[in-house]
């Protein structure tokens, strides 16, 4: 039952830590507006970075928002790394290779899970396994190449080197080890996707016959440790990005009644800053401090 506990436990720990970090970010107070153009949900204006504030007496006019444009924007950003393409072309091939590797490995795992679920019902699909098999090796190779490229780039580039810490390299090496052991497992197995699918099925059904041999055991072990480690690092920028984009850059909602309630609550909080233009003998809250003016 070791593998069952290890696999399920790792996934549960991953979900719990990730959820904790998401809740921590989401529960931070409402901030002052800090949007940044271009904002893709501006249906007629996002092409050039325009906003609803370009409309005369905008508060009297209906707003035209486009969810499709947001989804399209994010899809290009996530899958093709739009910002790096636009602003850091030299890094783009390496970063894209690296990220494509990760995406493909995740996709191969998802296909293996789907096959495992199907096979629990008694069916099987060689085609699905073959597709997952090809995707997996492509992912391992691209991911591995991306890791090597990024490490070399960080070591050789004068701009990147001073900002690359032990943690940066550790994370890259860790992921590199995951890709490398994945590649080794793929080479040894007849069809790695089939083996993975079987392990997933045995885990889901708590089948004691589960038996994972080297190097797949090393690959799965490393991957699970990485899964636990991941939400403790800044590599969860895939989550943070939701907030930096949707809750800050693109948060252009004018104040409404619900927001007013939140702001009034925040303005009741005490102000503890010590500078002479703020500090008073009697501790004031934000509302009082903002409406008055203490002489310096």
């Amino acid at each position, binding site marked *: 039952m070791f593998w069952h506990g290890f696999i399920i436990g790792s996934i549960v720990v991953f979900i719990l830590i990730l959820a904790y970090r998401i809740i921590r*970010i989401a529960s*931070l107070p409402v*901030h*002052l*507006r*800090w*949007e*940044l*153009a271009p904002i893709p949900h501006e249906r007629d*204006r996002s092409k*050039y*970075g*325009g*906003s609803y*504030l*370009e*409309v*005369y007496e*905008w*508060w009297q006019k209906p707003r035209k928002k486009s969810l499709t444009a947001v989804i399209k924007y994010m899809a290009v*950003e996530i899958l093709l790394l739009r*910002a*790096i393409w636009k*602003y*850091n072309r030299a*890094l783009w091939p390496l*970063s894209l290779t690296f990220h494509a590797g990760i995406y493909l490995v995740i996709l191969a795992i998802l296909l293996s899970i789907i096959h495992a679920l199907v096979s629990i019902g008694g069916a099987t699909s060689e085609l699905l396994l073959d597709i997952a098999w090809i995707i997996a090796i492509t992912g391992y190779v691209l991911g591995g190449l991306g890791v090597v490229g990024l490490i070399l780039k960080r070591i050789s580039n004068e*701009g990147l080197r*001073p*900002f*690359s*810490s*032990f943690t*940066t390299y550790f994370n890259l090496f860790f992921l590199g080890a995951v890709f490398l052991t994945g590649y080794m497992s793929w080479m040894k197995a007849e069809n790695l996707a089939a083996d993975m699918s079987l392990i997933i099925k045995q885990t889901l059904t708590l089948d004691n016959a589960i038996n994972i041999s080297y190097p797949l055991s090393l690959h799965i072990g490393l991957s699970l440790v990485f899964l636990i480690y991941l939400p403790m690092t*800044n590599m969860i*920028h895939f989550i*943070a*990005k939701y*907030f*930096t*984009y949707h*809750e*800050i850059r693109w948060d*252009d909602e*004018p*104040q409404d009644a619900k927001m*007013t309630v939140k702001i009034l609550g925040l*303005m009741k909080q*005490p*102000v*503890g*800053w*010590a*500078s002479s233009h703020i500090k008073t003998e009697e501790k004031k809250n934000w509302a009082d*401090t*903002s*409406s008055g*003016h203490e*002489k*310096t």
Partner: protein
Amino acid sequence: MKKLKLTDIAANENTPLTELNIDELIPLPPPYDRAGDLPGFRQLTEDQRQRLVCNLDGVVSYAGLPKPENEAEKKKYIEQFLGGLKKLLDKENNWTFLQPLILSLDYCAQCQTCNDACPVYLASGRNDLYRPTYRSEIFRRLIDKYGKTGGKLRARLTGKDIRLNWATITRLYELSYRCNLCRRCAQACPMGVDNALITRELRKLFSQELGWAPKELHEKGTVLQLEVGSPTGLNPRVAIDNLEFLDEEFSEATGIDVKTVWDKQGADVLLIHSAGDIISFPESPISFTILCNAAGINWTLSSEIGGYDGVNYGLFYDDVQLARVAIRHAEIARKLGVKKIVMGECGHQHKAFITVADRVLTGDLNIPRESVMTFLENLVFSGKIEFDPSKNDFPVTLHDPCNVVRNLGIVEPQRRILRYLCPQFREMTPSGVDNYCCGGGGGLSVMSDVNFTDWKVNVSGRMKFKQVLEAFADVPGPEVNKYVCAPCLNCKLQFRDIFEHYGAKERSGIICGGLAELIVNAMVDIKTPFIKWFDD
């Protein structure tokens, strides 16, 4: 150029980290391409080096920075810095920007994609000190070390240890004023990390906890505005007198009755100019008076303290001052019972009042606020005023104030006006939301302590000056008069300093002005040219 390590920030507290050399900056187009022909940097005197804290780049933006006489005094400031650092991470003391700050601190991937988006870094010839990430990463590591549990141990284990000493805090202070807060770096970041925000939070820590802020922004900025009425020092009586004088002068010059309206109860529009325009660019407020009266708008200015100056320097360095100024403006509008407030040609007023303060102004203080760009566009295309675009038949280019364009997404209204009224309008490259800052953003345009102006015109304003020259590359000589339209007082002040420094009027025939002046210049009813070229 000396390569810098992050740990250098704490070393040799009395020695500058880098020395600026004009030959290492990016070259400008002819006739400004020979460094030897241009005025260089004013070097600090020996007396200034002894008296002032000057340990960053040989430039001093704030002569008032204390110079401790002993270790105990230094320790006191370091303790204050640490206290402020913790307050920045606190939900009560920093609810205003806590979420954006934490996300920007915790999720930088160190890809350095933002660097080449920064006009200061590029103009400096890629000096490490001016990377948007240099100050941010140092601050990030200090926060990780001193603001988080187990931080000191983690800093040692991961090799991210930055010493916190007198050199570190004074250099961070100065370095926080080597950024225009233009947010071009934030736009480039794939993660959505905002180095400009981190810089502003750093400024905020110094202001709100240690009381360190440039005198032009604080003491002679927001404090003066709230006490006297304006950072210009104009009190209400003097402001009215000045504009009455200008009304008379321009009535005479234009042949039409120019009459500024003051304190009209129940007006449709409260127009809040930057009072600096009254002093430095008087054609601007007068243009609005002419246009509003010609279009029959029911408008007014306010003579309440603070009501005739829309600037809000709090946006650059201090949340409390930001809120105080914004609330003061809103209270004045409420008292007058106006239907809406229209921003003057001032970029940071737009951002501070229309969006940032939107979550400070509650209840009846939340009066509709509109950009001058849409206001003028509506006025120009209303059909109430007759225009003759041939009166503006000279090369015109548009500068996009970052706070109006990149930060608010107001891009096209001003362009529609210029395309209609200026036959020789041409864009800069890049423009719109991708524009470069004028180099005076983030409050820098009004800062002129010690030798700071030299840095502004040589480094932070360099990319913009290059862009301007390139926009007029087909007519480079002084024989053709050229107009840079900069609808923002702070940008105009920065352009004025740049053009004076390089002699751009004399050598290239370039002047700078606002948008409203171009509109008035094209009015059929204005018989003599409204725009004055070179004091003619």
